[in-house]
C-alpha cells in the first residue's frame, strides 16, 4: 500500500469519525466529498491537458434530474436518486462529449463554459418548470428503504458519500493505469503520435469525458440530497472554476488529491467566509496564486513527491504548443 493510499484511508476515517464528535461537521464533510468527487472527475481531464470551465453543468443537471424525479415520484429512494444523478451525468457526457472532444485547450474549455452557461440560462429563464433562480426543493425521501429523520439522514448520506468516494477513487486510479487512461494522458503531449500508433485521441478523450461527467453527476446528486435544494447557481461557471481550483489544489497526480483539495477548500472557504466576511474570494485567490507559484503539483504532489525530477516545459516546446492552439494575430498581415 502506497503512502498516498494510506493517506486516503486516513482521510476517509477522519471524515467518518470527526462528525461523531462535532455533529455539525456532517454537512461540510458531505459537501467536501461531493466536491471531491467532482474534482476527481475534472482532474481526469486535466491529466489530458484539458481544462473544462463548465463541468459544473453536469452536477447541476444531475441535481435537477434528481429533483424533478423526486418531485414526480416522492417515494423514490435517495440511493436511487444518487444513481440517477450519475446516470444523468454519464448520459449528458456521452452526448456533449461527442461534440466537445473535437476541440482542445482553450476551445475545449470555452465550449464547456458556453454550454454550461446555456444550461444556467435555461434553468434561470424557464422558471415555471425550473423554479427560476430560486431552484427546486427536494423533499427528504427514504434512504435504502429507511424513513430517517434529519440527523439519521445526514449520517446515512455521510457514510454513503465517504464509501462512494473511496470506491470511485480506486476506480479512477485503476482507469488511469489502463490503456484508455494512459492514452488520455498522451493526448496532452502528442496527439499526432497517438493517431499513428492506431489509437484515437478523440475516443480516449471521450471516454475520459464521460467518466468525468458521471462523477460530476454523482457529485451533483449528492450535493442536492444534502442541501435539499437545487439552484442554477450549481452550474454557474464560477462553480466550475472552483472545481478546477480544487483539483489543482489537491493535485492531479493521485486520486486522493481531489479529496484532500476538497476538504481544504471547503474549510478554507467556510472559515474565511466567517472570518473575512466580504473577502473570502480574495483569500481563495491568494491561496491559489501561492499554490501555482510554490506547489504547482498540488497537495498530493507535496505530500507524496516522486523522486523523479519533472522537466520544465522547454521554452521552444511551449511556443510550439501555443502555435498549435492559436495562430496569433496573424490575419492582420495577410
Amino acid at each position, binding site marked *: 500500500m502506497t503512502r498516498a493510499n494510506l493517506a486516503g484511508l486516513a482521510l476517509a476515517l477522519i471524515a467518518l469519525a470527526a462528525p461523531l464528535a462535532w455533529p455539525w461537521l456532517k454537512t461540510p464533510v458531505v459537501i467536501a466529498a461531493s466536491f471531491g468527487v467532482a474534482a476527481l472527475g475534472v482532474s481526469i481531464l486535466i491529466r489530458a491537458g484539458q481544462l473544462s470551465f463548465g463541468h459544473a453543468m453536469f452536477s447541476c443537471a444531475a441535481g435537477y434530474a434528481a429533483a424533478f424525479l423526486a418531485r414526480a415520484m416522492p417515494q423514490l429512494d435517495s440511493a436511487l436518486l444518487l444513481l440517477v444523478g450519475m446516470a444523468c451525468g454519464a448520459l449528458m457526457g456521452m452526448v456533449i462529449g461527442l461534440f466537445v472532444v473535437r476541440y482542445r485547450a*482553450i476551445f475545449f474549455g470555452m465550449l464547456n463554459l*458556453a454550454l454550461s452557461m446555456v444550461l444556467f440560462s435555461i434553468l434561470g429563464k424557464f422558471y415555471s418548470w425550473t423554479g427560476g433562480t430560486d431552484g427546486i426543493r427536494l423533499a427528504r425521501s427514504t434512504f435504502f428503504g429507511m424513513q430517517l429523520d434529519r440527523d439519521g439522514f445526514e449520517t446515512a448520506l455521510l457514510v454513503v458519500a465517504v464509501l462512494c468516494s473511496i470506491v470511485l477513487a480506486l476506480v479512477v486510479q485503476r482507469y488511469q493505469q489502463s490503456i484508455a487512461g494512459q492514452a488520455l494522458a498522451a493526448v496532452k503531449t502528442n496527439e499526432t503520435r497517438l493517431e499513428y500508433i492506431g489509437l484515437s485521441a478523440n475516443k480516449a478523450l471521450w471516454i475520459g469525458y464521460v467518466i468525468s461527467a458521471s462523477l460530476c453527476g454523482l457529485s451533483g446528486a449528492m450535493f442536492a440530497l444534502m442541501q435539499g435544494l437545487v439552484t442554477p447557481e450549481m452550474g454557474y461557471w464560477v462553480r466550475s472554476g472552483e472545481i478546477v481550483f480544487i483539483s*489543482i489544489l489537491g493535485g492531479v497526480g493521485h486520486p486522493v488529491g481531489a479529496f484532500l483539495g476538497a476538504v481544504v477548500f471547503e474549510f478554507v472557504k467556510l472559515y474565511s467566509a466567517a472570518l473575512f466576511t466580504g473577502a473570502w474570494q480574495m483569500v481563495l485567490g491568494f491561496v491559489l496564486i501561492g499554490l501555482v507559484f510554490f506547489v504547482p503539483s498540488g497537495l498530493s504532489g507535496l505530500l507524496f513527491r516522486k523522486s523523479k525530477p519533472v522537466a520544465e516545459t522547454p521554452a521552444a516546446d511551449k511556443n510550439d504548443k501555443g502555435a498549435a492552439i492559436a495562430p496569433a494575430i496573424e490575419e492582420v498581415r495577410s
Partner: protein
Amino acid sequence: MNQELFLLAVLDGISYAALLFLVALGMTLVFGVMRILNMAHGSLYAFGGYFAATLGLWAVAKGLSPAWSFLWLVLAALVIGAVLGTVMEVLLLRRIYHKEQILQLLVTFAAFMIFEDLQRMIWGAQPYFVSDIVNYLGVAEVLGITYTRYQLMVLPGVALVVFFGLRWFLKSSRTGRQIVAVAHNREVATAMGIDAKRICLLTFVAGSMLGALGGALASPTTSLVPGIGAEMIVLSFAVVATAGLGQIEGTLVTALLIGLARSFAVYLQPEMEVLVPYLIMVAVLLFRPQGLFSVAQARRV
C-alpha cells in the same frame, strides 16, 4: 417586425456590439501575443467603469462642464489599464510564462477572485452611475424614436477608431511588428533584438486598457454593480472563441453578430436573449472549429 423596429434593433445591436468589441479586443490581443487567456479581464472592465464613474463624480462636484467627461472616461481607462495591467504582468504573469497553460489560466482566475472582492472593498455595493455626458450630448431623432447621441455615435465611433488604429498599429508600426513577432516565437524574437519582456508588458497593458475602456465607456449608460465583470468575462470569451483566437477582424464581426442577434432576440424572442451569444458560438464552432477567422497552422511533423 416593421421597418422602424428593424432599424431600431440594428442601432441597439451596434451600440452594444461596440462595447463588447472593445472588451473582447483586449482579451484577444493579450491571448494572441502571450497565449494567456486572462480570466481577470472582466474585472478590468469593471474597474475601468468604476474609476470613470468616480472621476466623473469628482468632476461634477467640482462643477466642471460635462464636455470634459470624455476626457475622464478615456483617462480612467488609461490609468486603470496601466496600473492594474502593470501590476498583474509584473507580479503574476511574468513569473509563469514558462509554466503550463493550465496554471497560467488559474493564476488569472485567482486574480479575478481577488479583484472581485477588491472592487467591492473600494466602491462598496451601491450602484454607481454617472451619465452627464449622455445628457450633455442629448438625443437624436431616428425615425421618430429618440436615441441618445452617445450610443448612436460615440460608442460605435470609438470602436471603429480603435479597430482601425490597432490594425494600422500592428501592421505598420515598428512596435506593432515586434508584437506580432513575439506572438509567434518569443525566443527567436529576442534573438532578433526584440525586448520580449517589454513587448509583453506593453501588450498586456494595452489589452487591459481596452478592457477598462470598454467599462469606462459603458459607465454613462450602465449602473455599475458588483459582479458586472464576471458577466463580461464569459461574454468576451464567447466573442473571442467564436472569432478565432487572436483575430481582430473576427472579433469585430463576431461582436456585431452577437450584438445584433441579441437585440433582435429582444424584439422577436425575448426568452432567447441570454442564450444567443452561446448558441452563436456553438453553431460557429461546429462548422469552423478554429473560429470564424483563422490562419492555417504551421505544420509540425
